[in-house]
């Protein structure tokens, strides 16, 4: 597996198409956390997120093995996009939210509704990750959307602008406010992030 670490995604996909299971294992290890975090930020439940992660990679396996993969050079955004789609489907199945309209794969976040955060979640004893998750989930929808796309799908601001049908400047502006709002929340809820984050 060590030798595979230096191989780029596109090459690994081609190797996997030819039957190299280690290539797939490398892709999975490389992208599991970002995909899983993106799902978890939406569905909030760890076990549901794990189920959806499995579904995500089953789709990936079937697509690649079926010769239908055509996302040359953009493997990670593709993975996270599938994960988001499945998270949306999950909400539809659960009927927690009204039907979400999607024109195409790139605009899938436009009407996405996230689960409400419970009051109990705000507890001082929460782990650092829980706190950050909480701060991200409290962001206004459009800001959270850009943040997830930029951090977990590794999409450029230009790609985000296209996917959300706004200008690049608007996408940048939303990202700026997302970061400012997280900073405000960290200060408001008394997290000593300079100590915890070892800045």
């Amino acid at each position: 597996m060590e030798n595979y670490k230096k191989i780029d995604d596109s090459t690994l996909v081609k190797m996997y198409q030819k039957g190299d299971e280690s290539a797939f294992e490398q892709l999975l290890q490389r992208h599991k956390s970002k995909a899983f975090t993106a799902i978890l930020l939406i569905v909030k439940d760890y076990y549901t997120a794990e189920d959806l992660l499995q579904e995500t990679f089953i789709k990936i396996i079937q697509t690649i093995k079926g010769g239908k993969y055509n996302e040359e050079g953009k493997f990670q955004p593709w993975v996270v996009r599938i994960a988001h789609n499945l998270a949306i489907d999950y909400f539809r199945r659960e009927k927690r939210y009204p039907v979400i309209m999607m024109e195409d794969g790139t605009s899938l976040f436009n009407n996405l509704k996230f689960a409400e955060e419970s009051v109990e979640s705000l507890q001082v004893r929460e782990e650092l990750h829980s706190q950050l998750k909480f701060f991200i989930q409290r962001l206004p929808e459009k800001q959270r959307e850009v943040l997830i796309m930029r951090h977990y799908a590794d999409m450029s601001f230009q790609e985000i602008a296209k996917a959300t049908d706004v200008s690049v400047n608007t996408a940048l502006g939303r990202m700026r406010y997302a970061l400012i709002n997280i900073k405000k929340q960290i200060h408001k809820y008394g997290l000593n992030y300079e100590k915890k984050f070892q800045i």
Partner: protein
Amino acid sequence: MKKSFKFRQQIIAKIYQENDLPQEDIFANAKAEEEYFELKNIKKQLDRYLKTPSEKVIQNILNYSKNYNQALKAR
């Protein structure tokens, strides 16, 4: 004012390494410099926020792939 707003957006692009805005341009303005370092720190913390699924789930996926591969070969 409009220019200032756009400049702040350019700072965000700079933080995400999507433009070549010279740091000197940012440091020429004390408020912009402060925001640059503050938001850069927040970004750094967000980059660290990654959750990992259990090993069992990873094994399930790998097993599915192997079985899928074998099923394809058997056809």
